């Protein structure tokens, strides 16, 4: 980790541009999957994986430094936050006299969207989402930096 030059990965223009175009839509898709997951296909796990795929693209384009530049938070902070959120939601009902993981339903009028139903299970799902994103970031952190010198030149082709 120490004493390594900031990435000297040769950037391929086409990959670079494609990632720039795709990254944010992919992230949005992941959020959509997360929030729609209770009623449509999706959920925190899939959402997290899609966000992870976006991170992977970023990595392919710019190496670990680009991935690190995505967030101020360290990967393990995100991972831990996810775990914490999930367990707080799991434990919170106990304090209110319910059983562990009892789901609560909230309904509000939101100006544009109309009547919105949310359950506390969504928060649990957010925890799962954060955890999966943290997990992906941690894997890149663990295996992504310090590319072997001979492989910097012949950069691997982007995966499907």
């Amino acid at each position: 980790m120490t004493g390594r030059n900031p990435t000297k990965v040769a950037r391929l223009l086409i990959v670079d541009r494609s990632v720039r175009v795709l990254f944010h839509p992919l992230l949005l898709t992941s959020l959509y999957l997360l929030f729609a997951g209770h009623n449509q296909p999706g959920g925190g796990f899939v959402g997290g994986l899609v966000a992870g795929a976006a991170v992977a693209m970023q990595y392919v384009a710019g190496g670990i430094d680009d991935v690190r530049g995505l967030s101020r938070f360290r990967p393990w902070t995100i991972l831990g936050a996810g775990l914490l959120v999930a367990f707080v939601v799991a434990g919170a009902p106990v304090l209110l006299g319910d059983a562990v993981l009892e789901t609560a339903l909230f309904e509000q009028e939101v100006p544009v969207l109309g009547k919105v139903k949310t359950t506390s299970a969504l928060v649990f799902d957010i925890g799962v989402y954060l955890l999966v994103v943290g997990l992906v970031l941690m894997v890149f952190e663990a295996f992504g930096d310090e590319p072997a010198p001979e492989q910097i030149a012949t950069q691997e082709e982007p995966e499907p």
Partner: protein
Amino acid sequence: MIALLVLHALVGFGVVAAGSRLGRTGLLVAAVPSVVTLGWLAAQAGTVLDGDDVTESTSWVPGLDLAVDLRLDGFSALMVLLVAGIGVAVFAYSRRYFSDSTPALGRLAGLLTLFAGSMLGVVLADHLLVLYTCWELTSITSYLLIGNDHTNAKARAAALHALLLTGAGGLAMLGGFVVLGQAAGTYRLHEILDTPPSGTAVSVAVVLILVGVATKSAQYPFHGWLPGAMAAPTPVSAYLHSATMVKAGIYLLAHLAPAFATLGYWRPLVLTVGLVTMVAGGLRALRQTDLKLLLAFGTVSQLGFMAVLFGLGTPDATMAGCVLLLAHGCFKAALFMVVGILDHETGTRDIHELPALDRRWRPLLALSIVSAASMAGVPLVFGFVAKEAAYQAVLDADGIWTGAVIAGLVAGSAITMAYSLRFVWGAFGAPGRRRAAGAAPAPPAPAFVAPVAALAVPTMLLGVAPGALDDLVTVADRSLDAAAEAVHLATWHGANTALGLSLLALASGVALFAARSRLAPLLASGARVPDSGQAYLVALRGMNTGATRVTGVVQNGSLPIYVAVILLTVAGAPVLVLLRDLPWEGWPDGGGQAGHVVVSLVILGAALSAAVLRRRIAAILLLGVTGYGMAALFVVRGAPDLALTQVAIETLSTVMFVLVLRKLPDRFGRRSILSLRVLRVGIAALVGVGVFLLALLAGSHRVDERVADDIIERAEPEAHGRNVVNVILVDFRALDTAGEITVLAAAAIGAVALARAGRRPPGVAPADEGVDA
């Protein structure tokens, strides 16, 4: 009640978090929960003394019948009085004992509060599993408190010794609890004791619980950790290792005895262990020169005494035990505080090194004499009342063992008298002191002595007028044993056998003390008896080497062997069962759509190519193809959720494979050994066929009804979601998900650690802290 426990937790963690910023003020804050507990107990006193229980229950997991059931009955009230009352005294004392510069003082104060809360949980719990949890929390806080000075290797080793021993006992006890709870059909303590189950399993369970009791309450042969625990600061020893925590075992024993004392082995076992502990602990106390160690072995001895009384299981003996619990809490905490004061003011607590003390120390001397007299059972102090009641209870009991028990108790009491004398003599009067060392040390400040006085005064008053405790001891006795009669404590019962036994014990004790120089060589020979500390070390080393060997065999580091073992277990074991039990029902129908065939062929082709190709990157890509093929199959079968997840996972895992691949050679190594290749192909084929058969047969042999319909029906009304897969993940089976994400997090941390471990700069050894022994 649960609010009290939460208060302890909040204040405890708060003070730990505040650290040493608060200085000694932290001790005042830490004392607040104990004061509140005393106030609460006073408010409940009326109800409890009327014989009613205060109960409270908070549901935890109703499906598993897990609930935080708390119950304040007479005996619990007595224990709460002990825990909170002595707690307040210890906190007051600590403020003088420690200085603002004591390292890690904030942590110590907070841990003491957390301990008080855990102990409160033990004595209030009515649910066996809650009791177990709090029991282990006391072990953990005790561990942290003994090792609070983390720079002291001896303290750390002693803390570990205590934790391992009480933890092992706790595990045995948990096993016993589960068996007992299953046999009784309930985990509520008072329900189990009202109608005790019986049978072989219950007998075994009770023995397991007794192991837990014996480790916690330092009974022979598990007493070794308690003297070691004296490495803790004296206020901690006074609180945990004499007055409260070590009585957790006795507390449980007291509950079990009325219900299970009729078991054939109970009395021989408990009474023998108790008497051996009482006599052997006392003899060890007699040859100590460190006053604190003397008290520690004295505590072991007294715990043996209590085990005998509560182990008898008769109402009278239980009553005597209750009185002894209170008396011991007062005098032992006070004596520990005296040792702490001597240590603090003179810098030593060794009989041979303590300097001569002048008349200004007389108040402390008087308090010590009162407390030591109570320990020895001298008339007109509180301990005498307990001892008289004990003798009377054993005399009134019938059984062939009463003679032996009486003999043991008298012997133990004589030894107690001898070491009580040795304590006072050693602390204040020993001749041959180095008087030349200038002026006598300055006496302790009154505020330092005040907590000792606060504990010694009840010892004195209750010795003269023990009747004040009649009501409390009566309800305590009744809550343990419904057959108990009203108690009338008195100092003078007339010239009866019990009084004679008391006097005999006291006289023998004085004789023992007078003959100390002649007995010293005899006592010293006791050092040659192998003690449990050595046994512990041998066991610990044996366990370490054993673990190393087992690891060497089981975790031999060969990935192919790991994979083969896992695959064969997963795929091979079910197939064996399948082949034996399930007949072949023919091919299932409905699998013949054109789309299936095409996708399946792609998957098969990719899988076969991945197996034979030599370039790693190509194999990985083909593996990805099989994964995407699976996703396509899911789409064809109408499962978009699964397909979505499969695609995302496949994408990510391919990228991650490539990451790892960069560190590996370009091609797989050539395998030259033919037999090894045959073996691998064989395993692969076996696993493939096994999984295939499993999938084929499992579908046609449904035993239970499909849960799917039920879940689909309940998804919308109960969990407010239409995506059933998600509803299962985050609602119906959310506990599973919580477990899975925990595993994921652990795996991620492991992966990072693993990747970084290989990268440690040369010359930096991995952090390796062995067992301090």
